[in-house]
C-alpha cells in the first residue's frame, strides 16, 4: 500500500518528495541519464560540482578499481559556472524535481559568489557546498576546520535565498566538530561523506595508478565509515543529515536512516548498476512497511 506511506523528507528548509538523491559527480549533468532512468522521479538531482572557471581536470588514469571500491581523481573537470547556467540549468529546470547544485570555490568569496549566482536562479532548490573535494590542490580545505566551515556556510547563507547544504570530508579526526561548525553557520543539512583519501600503487612500475597520485575512495568499501560518520554527527549535532557512501541496496538506505540520515545520495552504484536509483525508490515503501513505519522521519535516528 505505497500510498499510505509517506516518502517525503525534510532537511532544514528543503523538502524533497522522496529521500533518494544522486550524488554529485556520479550522475553527470543528468541529461546523460535521461534514457536510462526516469530522472524526474528522483528526490533530487545533483549535477557534477561546478567551479567559477572551467577546469580541465586531472590527467588519466582517473579511476582505479580497488576491493569493493573505486578510487578516483577526476579533478573537478567541468566547464565552469557560465557554461553551466547557459547549457545545463535550462535542462535541469525542465525536469520538474528538486535540483541541488554543487559548487566548489577556492576561497570564501568564490563560494559566496557562486552560491549567489546559482542560488538566485529559478529552478534551483538548494546549493550544496563541496567543502571536501580531495582532488583539488591550492584551495583551503574548508571541510577540515570547524571555524572556516562555519564561516563559509554563514557567508553563503547570508547571500543566497535557497537552502544551503554542507558536504563534508571524512578525512578529519572529529567529524562532529566540523558538522557543528556547519550547523552554527546555519546550514540546512550536512552531507556525509565525500570520498576517503587513498591511493593505489603499481609495484612493478613503481608508480601510482592514478595520474594524480592520490584520490578519493568510494563504493561499498566506505559504507561502514560513512555510517559511522552519520552516527557520530547524529549523536552530537542538531542538524539534518544526508547520508552518502557505498549505498547500493535498500538495506543500505535503511541503515543510513536508522543511523541518522533523513535522505541519502547514491554515488558509485550509478556507475555499476545504472538503474539503481529509481529501483531504490520502488523498494522503499515495502522496507518502511516491514518495520511498520509510515514515514521516513519515523526511522531517522532510531538506533537503539
Amino acid at each position, binding site marked *: 500500500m505505497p500510498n499510505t506511506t509517506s516518502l517525503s523528507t525534510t532537511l532544514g528548509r528543503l523538502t524533497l518528495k522522496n529521500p533518494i538523491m544522486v550524488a554529485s559527480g556520479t550522475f553527470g549533468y543528468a*541529461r546523460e541519464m535521461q*534514457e536510462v532512468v526516469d530522472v524526474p522521479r528522483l528526490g533530487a538531482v545533483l549535477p557534477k560540482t561546478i567551479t567559477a572557471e572551467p577546469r580541465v581536470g586531472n590527467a*588519466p588514469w582517473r579511476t582505479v578499481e580497488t576491493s569493493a571500491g573505486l578510487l578516483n581523481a577526476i579533478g573537478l573537470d567541468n566547464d565552469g559556472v557560465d557554461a553551466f547556467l547557459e547549457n545545463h540549468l535550462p535542462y535541469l529546470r525542465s525536469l520538474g524535481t528538486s535540483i541541488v547544485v554543487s559548487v566548489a570555490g577556492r576561497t570564501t568569496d568564490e563560494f559566496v559568489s557562486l552560491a549567489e549566482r546559482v542560488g538566485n536562479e529559478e529552478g534551483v532548490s538548494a546549493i550544496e557546498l563541496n567543502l571536501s573535494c580531495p582532488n583539488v590542490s591550492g584551495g583551503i580545505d574548508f571541510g577540515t576546520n570547524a571555524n572556516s566551515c562555519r564561516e563559509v556556510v554563514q557567508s553563503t547563507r547570508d547571500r543566497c535565498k535557497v537552502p544551503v547544504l554542507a558536504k563534508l570530508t571524512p578525512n578529519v579526526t572529529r567529524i562532529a566538530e566540523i558538522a557543528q561548525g556547519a550547523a552554527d553557520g546555519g546550514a540546512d543539512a550536512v552531507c556525509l561523506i565525500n570520498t576517503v583519501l587513498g591511493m593505489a600503487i603499481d609495484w612493478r612500475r613503481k608508480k601510482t595508478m592514478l595520474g594524480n597520485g592520490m584520490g578519493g575512495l568510494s563504493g561499498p568499501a566506505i559504507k561502514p565509515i560513512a555510517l559511522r560518520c552519520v552516527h557520530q554527527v547524529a549523536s552530537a549535532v542538531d542538524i539534518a543529515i544526508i547520508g552518502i557512501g557505498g549505498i547500493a541496496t535498500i538495506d543500505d538506505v535503511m541503515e543510513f536512516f536508522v543511523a541518522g540520515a533523513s535522505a541519502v545520495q547514491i554515488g558509485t552504484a550509478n556507475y555499476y548498476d545504472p538503474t539503481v536509483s529509481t529501483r531504490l525508490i520502488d523498494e522503499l515503501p515495502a522496507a518502511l512497511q516491514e518495520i511498520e513505519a509510515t514515514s521516513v522521519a519515523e526511522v531517522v535516528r532510531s538506533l537503539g
Partner: protein
Amino acid sequence: MQPNMPSESHASKLHAAHYADRMKQIHTTVEQNELVGENTFRLRIAAKPIAAMVVPGQFVMIRLAGTNAPLIGRALAVYDVVRDANGEPTWIDLVYLRKGVMTRALSASALGTAITVWGPLGNGFNNESCDRLIMAVGGIGQTPMLTLGREAVGTETYGDPARANRWSENVELIYGARRKSLLAGVDDFRSAGFDVTLCTDDGSEGVKELVPNVLAARLAELPAGERVRVATCGPEIMMEKVAEVCKAADQSESEPSVTCDVSMETPMACGIGICFSCVAKIRQDGPEQWDYKRTCVEGPIFNAKDICW
C-alpha cells in the same frame, strides 16, 4: 547516421552534448563461454534489445551479477550479433582476453552464470562509403571489426532502423599478434569474405612484421585516387603508428586518399558518460587546442587527426 549524434538542441561543445541515448540494462546469463585462442574466450549472452540496436564499433559494459568482486563493469566491444530461427537479432557475442580481475572471473564462469550488461554504448563507426576498408588491428583489437567488415561487404545489416550496408567494394583485415596462438577468430574473418593478412612478432604465423608496417606496404601498392578507409583498434602505440602511416599515405601524391578511424580503449568506470574517467585528449578549435573528451559517449571511435596522442 551515427546513433549517438546529438540532436540540434544538444549540439554544443559541452561535455553533456553526447550521452547513452539508447542504452538498456539487461540481466542475462552466460550461454556459451569457449576458448577461441590462447587465453581468449568467446562469450554468448541473450540481449535482444542490444542485439537489435548495436552498430559496428559500439560496446557494452559487462558485470557479474550479485557480487562486488569485481565491482565496476568492463567495456567489451560487440564481436558478433547472432539471430534466432526467425532472423531476429537475439544474442551478442563478446570476445575477451583473460588479463586481470574481470576477465579472469568471466573465464571461470560456468554456463548459466548471471551477468548484467548495459548497452549499446558509444558512437560506433560510421558507414560512409569508400573503395576499400582496411581494418588494421593488433592484440585483442580484432573484436569490433567482424561486424564492421560484414556491414561494409553487405552480408549483414546492423542498427534499428537498419543502417545502409554494402558501403565498400573491398574489405581487408591486417591482424597482428605476438604469436600464432593469440590470433583468435581468424576463420570468422576469412569466412566473412575479407582478405586477411596475418602478422606476428615472432613469425609463427603470417609475416614477421608489425601491423603499421604491413599497412604502409599495402597502402603503397594501392592506386592514387582510391578512397581508402582505415579502421584501427589495439594497443595505443600501434594505433598511433597506424595513424601516422595513414597520414603519410594521405599526403603522398602517388598513394590513395586515406582516412583513419581509431577505436580508443581508455579505462572506463561507467560507460555512459557520468563519471568522467575515460577521457582522451581530443583536438578542438584549432590544431593546438584540446579538451578531455569522454571516450564512452563521444567515442570510442575518433578520427585519427583529432587525437592528441
